């Protein structure tokens, strides 16, 4: 790996971390979700500063180039993350459905109740008028 390329990698991972930290600073995301990104960005910095962290496992597994190992691992992490987000997404949609249905049904019930009360009122009124006459 050339020296210039390493500098670019280190700078890029530092800027990624900085960007993530800035977003967390202004409360753009919840801490639960921030944890994953913090760990991942630290991992990026670590790998860019100490590439030997990648070359050793590459040699152990017997892969040809460290870059293949990096791609494999990162893609796998992102794949799992994407799947987990699908699960979260589904659960959110489910909750949203529950909420919308609950609001709509509650509103229908309260309208029904009001209608019942109105009919009861008018029946009472009619009866009273009947008595007067």
């Amino acid at each position: 790996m050339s020296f210039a390329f390493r500098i670019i990698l280190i700078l890029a991972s530092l800027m990624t971390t900085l960007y993530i930290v800035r977003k967390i600073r202004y409360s753009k995301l919840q801490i639960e979700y921030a944890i994953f990104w913090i760990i991942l960005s630290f991992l990026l910095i670590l790998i860019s500063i100490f590439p030997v962290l990648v070359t050793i496992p590459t040699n152990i597994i017997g892969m040809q180039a460290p870059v293949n190992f990096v791609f494999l691992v990162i893609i796998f992490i992102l794949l799992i993350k994407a799947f987990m987000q699908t699960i979260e997404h589904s659960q959110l949609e489910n909750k949203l459905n529950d909420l919308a249905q609950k609001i709509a049904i509650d509103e229908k019930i309260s309208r029904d109740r009001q209608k019942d009360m109105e009919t009861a009122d008018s029946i009472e009124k009619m009866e009273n008028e009947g008595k007067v006459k």
Partner: protein
Amino acid sequence: MKKLIIIPAYNEEMNIVRVVNEIREKYSQYDYVVVNDGSKDNTAKVCIDHGFELINLPVNLGLAGAFQTGLKYAYIKGYDYAIQFDADGQHKTEYIDVILDEIEKGYDIVIGSRFVSKKKPFSLRMLGSNIISVAMKITTGKTIKDPTSGMRMFNKQMIEEFALNMNYGPEPDTISYLIKQGATISEVQVEMDERLEGESYLNFSRSMLYMLRMLISILFIQSFRKRK
């Protein structure tokens, strides 16, 4: 002074009646509200049948969301103090007054702590509690002896702040953040019971995840969070 006891409840049909009845009988000077966090059991029905004050969440929000619901209610109704009180019977009602006395001295948050004058027993759970204490000591310079205690009372300003903002879960990392922002916090000695019914939420892997979350949050994230 208006005081509210917030009781977040998730699947607590076995415990909730005993807990709320005790509060109603002995502490009627306090208002209370049960926040049912979308329980799968009959928690809501039990509360309605007994005529308890109930906020019934239609979906499960988790403890942070449920407790925030209670604080939002406290904020809208203009309460001066609000205390979190567990529905599982671990918290003892006799300490509510002690905590109130302390917060009336002018603290923002008062924690009902198991270890002010008593020593921590040695167990895996207490090791976790110690690690969190150390992390808070490093980042804030202040010692909180029982950071994971769920029995905490908040004053009016804290009620507003917790009710309206994101990332204000009732957890040690929020406490750590607030200490850094200049909030005053005190601890008073309380005792807690073991759970009588139902299962604890934290199993081993969840506990490990919780520790990881808390440590990264306290040591790193909270140091650059901006207060609105």
